[in-house]
């Protein structure tokens, strides 16, 4: 019996459930701490003109008249039975909205990560091939630029330039899901993925560079070189392969952040992802929308972390043995 309780998988599961419960409590209380409620969010300053009776009836309508503890547990109970809540603003259930938004966010995160890896890893290999040389300087400079240029600036500038001079703006055509119109969808994802990927390239490049430099100095590399392994084969097969672990860790973490919604880029490029769903929920003070969506994001984050851990085992046989 005790051995089952100590099973790493079970422990992991208990930890996960506790983490998610903590997230739920935190989001619930933080939301209530923000001034205003769904009444003032819907009516704006006109809410001031409501009579006392009108206000009372609205509080009941929005379910704000119930005690907080009751609000929390009735929401949590609903979530456990698969009912994530209803958004009056959207005229849809949070389940439907999330089913629409989650694949969009996933797709954007995957594409952005690919762009980030395609820029970051080669750049790191270029830098590491001649540390402190001209190549390294160039790589570091690009990395620094990616890190310091804010994506709202880059996004808005790019959008304005292509719309005005090329009259090309796929993101203004009304969003198309990949299953509806793959060609339009990929065009709409192109610029957001490039911008996010560019920002992502910086941490990947920095992590990869230091990992590569560390591996490069190890004995087996010298041995391989001595044996006459071709330089590029050496860099890829021997050095990069052994430096993958920190790169995967960093990419996994960044990917998790992207799932939380690349709010700013989603706003600029009108991409209806999870980030915008949360933002609109906060602005409208639709508590159930925010709580449930954040819970979905947190769950996905946890799953991605789990997958990253599993990926180590694939990449590095030493982890498998341990």
């Amino acid at each position: 019996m005790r051995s089952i309780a100590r099973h790493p998988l079970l422990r992991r599961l208990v930890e996960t459930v506790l983490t998610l419960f903590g997230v739920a409590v935190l989001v619930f209380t933080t939301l209530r701490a923000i001034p205003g409620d769904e009444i003032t969010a819907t009516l704006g300053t006109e809410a001031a003109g409501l009579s006392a009776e009108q206000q009372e009836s609205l509080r009941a309508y929005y379910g704000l008249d119930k005690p907080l503890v009751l609000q929390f547990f009735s929401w949590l109970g609903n979530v456990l039975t698969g009912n994530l809540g209803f958004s009056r603003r959207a005229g849809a259930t949070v389940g439907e909205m999330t089913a629409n938004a989650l694949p969009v966010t996933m797709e954007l995160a995957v594409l952005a990560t690919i762009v980030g890896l395609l820029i970051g890893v080669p750049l790191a290999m270029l830098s590491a091939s001649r540390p402190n040389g001209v190549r390294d300087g160039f790589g570091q400079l690009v990395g620094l630029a990616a890190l310091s240029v804010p994506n709202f600036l880059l996004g808005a500038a790019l959008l304005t330039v292509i719309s005005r001079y090329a009259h090309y703006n796929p993101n203004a055509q009304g969003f198309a899901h990949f299953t509806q119109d793959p060609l339009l969808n990929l065009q709409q994802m192109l610029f957001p993925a490039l911008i996010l990927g560019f920002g992502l390239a910086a941490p990947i490049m920095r992590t990869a560079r230091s990992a590569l430099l560390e591996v490069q100095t190890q004995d087996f590399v010298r041995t391989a070189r001595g044996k006459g392994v071709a330089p590029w084969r050496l860099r890829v097969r021997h050095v990069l392969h052994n430096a993958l672990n920190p790169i995967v860790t960093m990419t996994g973490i960044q990917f998790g952040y992207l799932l939380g919604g690349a709010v700013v880029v989603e706003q600029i490029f009108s991409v209806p992802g999870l980030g915008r769903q949360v933002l609109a929920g906060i602005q409208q003070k639709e508590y159930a929308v925010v709580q449930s969506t954040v819970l979905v994001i947190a769950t996905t984050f946890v799953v991605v972390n789990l997958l990253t851990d599993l990926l180590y085992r694939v990449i590095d046989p030493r982890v498998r043995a341990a």
Partner: protein
Amino acid sequence: MKLPSALSAPATRCVLAVAAAALVATGCSSGTPGKEGSTGSGTLVVGYTADPNTLDPWKATQFQAVHLLEQVYGTLTELDGDLNVKPGLAEKWQYADGNKTLTLTLRQGVKFHDGKPFSSADVKSSIERIQKPETAAVAAATVKSIQSVDAPDPQTVVLHLTAPDAGLLAGFATTNLAMLSKDDTSEAIGQKPNGTGAFTFGSRTAGQSVKLTANGDYWGGKPKVGGLEFRIIPDQTSVVAALQSGNVQFATLDDPLVAKSAEGSGLKVAKTPSLSYHVLQLNARKAPLDKLDVRLAISCAIDRKQVLDTAALGAGEVTGPITSPAYKSDPNARPCPTRDVAKAKQLLAGAGLANGVTIPAIVSQGEYATSVNEAQNLQAQLKEAGITLDLQTLESGAYVDKWVAADFTAAVALNGGRPDPDGMYGRYFTSTGNLNRVAGYSSPELDKLFAEGKATTDPAKRKEIYTQVSRHLEDNAAWVWLFSSYGYTATTQGVAGFTPMANGSLQNLRETSLQ
């Protein structure tokens, strides 16, 4: 290419394969030209920064919701380009019994979108439901003077008023008093709006778009476009980019800077003086603003034009309290028509505050584009008169919360205007008005003037009365009115026939055509 074969782990190989595929896909598609005006023939695409937050016209106050619902619903009266009352669902009307009975004759042959005929029973049901507290209709106060509604025949509605109410007919023109079918509930129309307007509700996708179809049975004639699509593009700069690419053909803008950039890039931009006004609201029920001299000192220490020029690029007009064209206040009719710092200091000294005074003021961040700039300019100007404006900059939700609760001493605000001065200020500045707590000022003289303004329907007499109201508000520095800004309508070159309105209404989309 040696790279993939050089890697042994299948997972890594898979990642690279996906990456290559994506590159090929995006590479191909970036070469494909965008589909210009991707919608079906004759659909006007309106760029729109947020989802409408409700589909219930009686609760709609957000711009997006109002702009959408005014296409779908009809009102008893409407406003023309100069904001004069014109027939809507009511074709004509007649006052009787010392202006205490108003008889409306309804238009014949009007149908709701679900096919049911519109009749006096719907008007009676709508007004009575709006008056019920549990409906929580935002315009309930506008129809407060209606004691009872009779529907003697399908085409006639008789309104019995508690007292004469000359502002009522103009008041009816708001979407917040839209006529609903007696068979519809709030819940039902929250999902599927059913009105008598020029467009019928089609479909909506949260965060993406709302689609409307032209109503062939519309009493004013079928609209010139086949439909409207309100496409949600959250960022105003991105809306302009969408117009430039031709994918969106129509948008309203409120940030003068954004409007300027749109104008410079070949779009048609029309600017319309707006009824809304930028104001420094003073709460005369809180010390030290309960002293008239302190309020007057603030009023005298501010050059309105300077606020307009520095905060809003000069895009607007200095204004007095009333902004509607027919009753417009003379902006110079106030105690210090030009800035007078010496007078301000003298007034402060008279109030026993020669050493200066500190006034806390709330400002919203993000509610509208120019708020913080206005506040900072006001702060700088007042400082020269020894008045410290202690600015509390709040996120817009927090600001609205404090404003609604009247929990402020002073507030930098942008308030909406209405065509009729009674509708605009009666609710703020009469002692029984539902916003009087927020206005922070009332007086027996004002109560009397507002009552007189309601009692007469003679336009010349009413103009005189509201000029006095305006003068009283300025002489007592109830608030400090600053300027009214412009509303901007940006369209692509092919859009014709749209007339913007000073109240920001988009009702004329039904007249708009697309070439």
